[in-house]
């Protein structure tokens, strides 16, 4: 594939932590999107604050792009270690830009750029980021006025001197970038721009956070843990504006007990955490099951066991989410695959937790949380807040028996009754009991809710349609990657089945699987956790599994190759 006949172009920025790659990424996303180009950006980073090597991929495209590709068209190496760090992603066609002052010994096919020189001319080393933004935007010949507008809004809170120096740095980089194209040192594909003014660019953490606020979340308690912290940060930043209690708890145990206490008193609360933190929360999950108090958990997965790879990605906590908490009680587990699903399903989690008085877990992962792309503006009118709080009468009983197992939920201080909840087995009033006949009734009552829950399971999404011989099952964040791989393979006999709700599974899944002649599953874990759950729920065994657990997300090329090979088998 030649860069010039592509619809999209993959830029990778790589440098040390603390060099400001994040700033370059954010600014470039804003500029490209404002100029009418679709963007996708994702990052991989080391668990350190300074040094090491981090990289960000930005895909710029005529068409919407949503997935990580291995292909690198342009590598901007802000550190000489970048070339070795990204060796697996550098191909024959990759153009590497590197600062003339830090060219490594073994250097061929490098395009030297005066990064530090132009930065120093603008005022110092720290302006290298703006020079880099300038060079890249110069390559794409983006309208200068548009760039300046984005730059001044980006630095709006900085003083004039800083803005001026960044502008100078950017302009000098821009001229240099243009000259690279004009002198034919680099070929840039002619990308078609379109009107994207109705689009927004967000990442997974923002999509989850906005979904939560839109559906009335007004309490978050959490302990910082990568990659889940972005949601706590977002809600904290907006705490005053939206009246949200945002508290950093002393540990994850406190976090979930606070959130359950908050729901008991009428709040709409959530916790955000990753595997290790969620492991500490599991007794709290069980408490929510027993008290029949709603709880929403955002669980952003990273590789384990134990501390694992703190800043990397994996889908290996499905079984943890599924079995977390002792005893038996119903729950719902979502695994959004797109930013829009992350927004919608987080919102839905609050309504469902409230309605069924159960834990609802939203499983994301580092890849989804840290991936950005443009999508049509989210409309909060699409979200309906459904509340299920009842005003208590004097004779109110919290666990009043009902047909569907759902007892009307009152809260203390609203009505004439008393609201008593107990982690011990309890009677209808919420008082401790050791009446073993009553115990059986209470277990049945709690589990009865599963019947109604199963009536509103999010159906799996078949793409491109329901006519297929070969079926590729996936869940969570791999959705856009698998979709792009299938687009590339362009086979009319093969479809993707993506599950955004992984528990309980939709009852149609068995039939969809049986309809296929061949089935494979794609999961970012080592043991095929969803495949195991599907076997357990439907009896259907998916024998072929495409698994990855290096800590990096699947790339489109990896999935394309793996599916290509699988399709060739027995053909």
């Amino acid at each position, binding site marked *: 594939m030649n860069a010039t006949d592509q619809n999209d172009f993959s830029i990778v920025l790589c440098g040390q932590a603390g060099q400001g790659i994040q700033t370059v990424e954010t600014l470039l996303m804003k500029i490209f999107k404002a100029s009418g180009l679709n963007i996708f950006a994702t990052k991989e980073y080391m668990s350190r604050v300074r040094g090491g090597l981090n990289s960000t991929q930005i895909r710029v495209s005529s068409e919407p792009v949503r997935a990580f590709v291995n292909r690198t068209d342009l590598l901007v190496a802000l550190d000489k270690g970048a070339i070795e760090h990204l060796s697996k992603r550098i191909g024959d066609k990759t153009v590497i830009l590197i600062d003339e002052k830090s060219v490594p010994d073994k250097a061929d096919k490098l395009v030297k750029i005066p990064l530090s020189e132009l930065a120093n001319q603008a005022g110092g080393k720290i302006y290298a980021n703006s020079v880099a933004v300038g060079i890249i935007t110069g390559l794409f010949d983006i309208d200068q006025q548009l760039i300046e507008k984005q730059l001044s809004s980006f630095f709006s809170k900085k003083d004039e001197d800083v803005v001026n120096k960044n502008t100078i740095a950017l302009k000098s980089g821009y001229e240099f970038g243009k000259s690279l194209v004009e002198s034919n040192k680099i070929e840039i594909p002619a990308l078609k721009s379109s009107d994207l003014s109705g689009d*927004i*660019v*967000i990442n997974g953490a923002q999509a989850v956070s*906005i979904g939560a*606020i*839109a559906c*009335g979340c*007004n*309490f978050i*308690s959490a302990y910082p843990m990568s990659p889940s912290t972005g949601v706590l940060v977002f809600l904290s930043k*907006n*705490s*005053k*504006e*939206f*009246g949200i*209690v*945002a*508290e950093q*708890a*002393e*540990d994850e*145990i*406190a*976090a979930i*007990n*606070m959130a*359950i*206490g*908050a729901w*008991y*008193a*009428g*709040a709409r609360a959530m916790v955000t955490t990753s595997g290790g933190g969620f492991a500490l929360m599991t*007794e*709290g999950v069980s*408490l929510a099951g027993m*008290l029949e108090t709603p709880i929403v958990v955002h669980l952003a997965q990273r590789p384990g066991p134990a501390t694992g790879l703190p800043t990397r990605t994996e889908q290996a906590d499905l079984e943890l989410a599924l079995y977390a908490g002792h005893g038996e009680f119903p729950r719902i587990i979502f695994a959004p695959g797109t930013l829009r699903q992350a927004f919608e399903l987080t919102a839905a989690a609050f309504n469902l937790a409230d309605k069924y008085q159960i834990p609802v877990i939203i499983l994301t992962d580092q890849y989804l949380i840290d991936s950005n792309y443009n999508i049509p*503006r*989210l*409309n*909060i*009118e699409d979200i309906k*807040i459904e509340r299920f*709080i009842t005003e208590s009468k004097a004779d109110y009983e919290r666990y009043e028996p009902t047909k569907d197992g759902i007892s009307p939920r009152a*809260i*203390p*201080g609203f*009505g*004439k009754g*008393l*609201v*008593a*909840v*107990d*982690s*011990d087995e309890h009677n209808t009033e*919420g*008082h*401790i009991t050791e009446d073993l006949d009553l115990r059986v009734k209470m277990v049945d009552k709690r589990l009865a809710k599963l019947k109604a829950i199963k009536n509103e399971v999010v159906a799996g999404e078949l793409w491109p349609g329901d006519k297929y011989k070969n079926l590729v099952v996936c869940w969570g964040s791999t959705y856009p990657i698998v979709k792009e791989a299938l687009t590339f393979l362009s086979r009319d006999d093969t479809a993707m089945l993506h599950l955004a709700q992984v528990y309980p599974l939709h009852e149609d899944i068995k039939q969809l699987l049986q309809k296929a002649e061949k089935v494979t599953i794609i999961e970012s874990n080592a043991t095929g956790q969803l495949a195991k759950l599907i076997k357990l729920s439907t009896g259907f065994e998916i024998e072929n599994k495409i698994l990855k657990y290096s800590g990096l997300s699947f790339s489109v090329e990896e999935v394309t190759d793996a599916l290509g090979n699988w399709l060739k088998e027995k053909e």
Partner: protein
Amino acid sequence: MMDSEQYNMGDIDIAWCPGCGDFGILKVLKEALAELDIAPQNLVIVSGIGQAAKIPHYLKCNFFNGLHGRALPAATAIKTANPALTVIAESGDGDMYGEGGNHFIHTIRRNPNIANFVHNNMVYGLTKGQASPTSQKGFVTPVQVAGVILEPFNPLAVAIALDASFVARAFIGDKEQTKELMKKAIVHKGYALLDIFQPCVSFNKINTNKWFKENTYYIDEKHDPANRNAAFKLACESVKLPLGVFYINKSKKPFEECITAYESYDQPLYKRQPDKIKLQELINSF
């Protein structure tokens, strides 16, 4: 003043041993609440697990009988979600100081406007007689067979060291003083610790009713509760254990009054709806 009868549950089965100090605490708690005119509907008692933690089952109130050691985070959140409620976190020494030790420390730092009543009998009752964090050195149990070797936890000294806004200790052998201290703790604006000595008639044959009487004394009226150093000194006394108000810091604002969530809005959380216009503007800004 209300009648303390209104808190009565009628004929119920109480799981405590006859002669347990918990009965006295339950009685004075009802009286204190009645004297403060706190209606059961506006009261939430949050407890953990243990014999003391069963107390909310034995009086009329809203209650959240949660997990072992986790009463304080839940109580903090309940008060924060609806500051109009009177919230009492009440449990035993094992629950609050052992299993919940981390929450004890950080709740003091957080300073929510809740009262924290800790039944302190220096032994584990529900699990039948093992050492508690406050068991004294040398105390022999089925587990600590050669006697406790760990230093006893000193909740009052810890609380004063953390600049808790209200720190007091009572002995249920004196019901009148216990009631007065409960009332002060409930009325106090901010986190209020009341450690309550009580005998365990089944498992603690050392720290009996008689022992507490002989080994406690009332803090002199001349003690200034605003004097943190003097309070700390009192808390560190170990020959005879002082009773009364050790320390009050009136300058602290409760947690709920400090957080941004109540800066622009004053309704309890259950009455709130997100500002849709502002949220759409925020979305559009990305």
